[in-house]
């Protein structure tokens, strides 16, 4: 599953029991792809000694979606497997 700029996505809600780079505060929340950054090693695989390149995206979230308030946005870089269709 790959995504395109402008697409709505949701950060996966799960809490993996291994190293990951998906911050807790975005888990389960919906945002929008603002850039496709590149294919980079997925940290979750790297920590197990496996190099697995995966597309990483910049995903923008509204503060009100994340925290229930605030008029700012937060853009977070997330690997493809951290995302699902919104």
């Amino acid at each position, binding site marked *: 599953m790959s995504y395109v700029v402008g697409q709505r996505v949701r950060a996966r809600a799960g809490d993996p029991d291994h190293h990951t*780079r*998906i*911050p807790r*505060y975005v888990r389960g929340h919906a945002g929008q792809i603002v*850039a496709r*950054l*590149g294919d*980079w090693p997925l940290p979750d695989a790297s920590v197990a000694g496996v190099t697995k390149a995966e597309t*990483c995206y*910049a995903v923008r979230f509204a*503060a009100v979606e*994340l*925290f229930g308030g*605030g*008029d*700012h*946005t*937060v*853009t*977070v*870089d*997330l*690997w493809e497997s951290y995302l699902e269709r919104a």
Partner: protein
Amino acid sequence: MSEHDHDHGGGHHDLPVAARVRQLEERLIAAGLASDEEIDAFLTRLYADASPVNGARMAARAWTRPGYRELLLSDGSAAAAELGFGGSGGLGYQLRVVENTPELHNMIVCTLCSCYPVSLLGPSPGWYKSFAYRSRTVREPRAVLAEFGVALPEDVKISVWDSTSEARYMVLPLRPSGTEGMGADELAGLVTRKGLIGTALV
């Protein structure tokens, strides 16, 4: 460490994190993954040419040359390479530069650790690595800015960038008014590290 070695004046080596770093270094060395000399050499290389003067020069050049501004915003790593930053191997990371405008203010944070373009901004300040800055910037950036003495007009939107991946972010500050007659060198002298992180205006 004996009692006499304790620095009660709040020195860096007294911090719990310093002990953790040392333990990690010892584990790396014990496991044969790196030697003390290799770690020292890596840190020396990392910090040799790292300075906020580099980022400041990029910002000032972007203010004075439209073509460079375009490159900086579309391919930050290429813009850094054009000034020779990062040496022959380049920066070693993808630099993404986000531009402040009269309507939008950008702030950089790394909530998971303290990622940051060291080669262009110099060693990261203690506050950048603090739990308070990392947790509060995504949640209440306007309040954090106020504590840095920055009061943005209410209608200026704030965009926070959380550096969770291989990309490193830098802010292109708004060129101050009244600087129309200044050249790039003089302008670079106005740009601060905080300005390039987004916790100060220039």
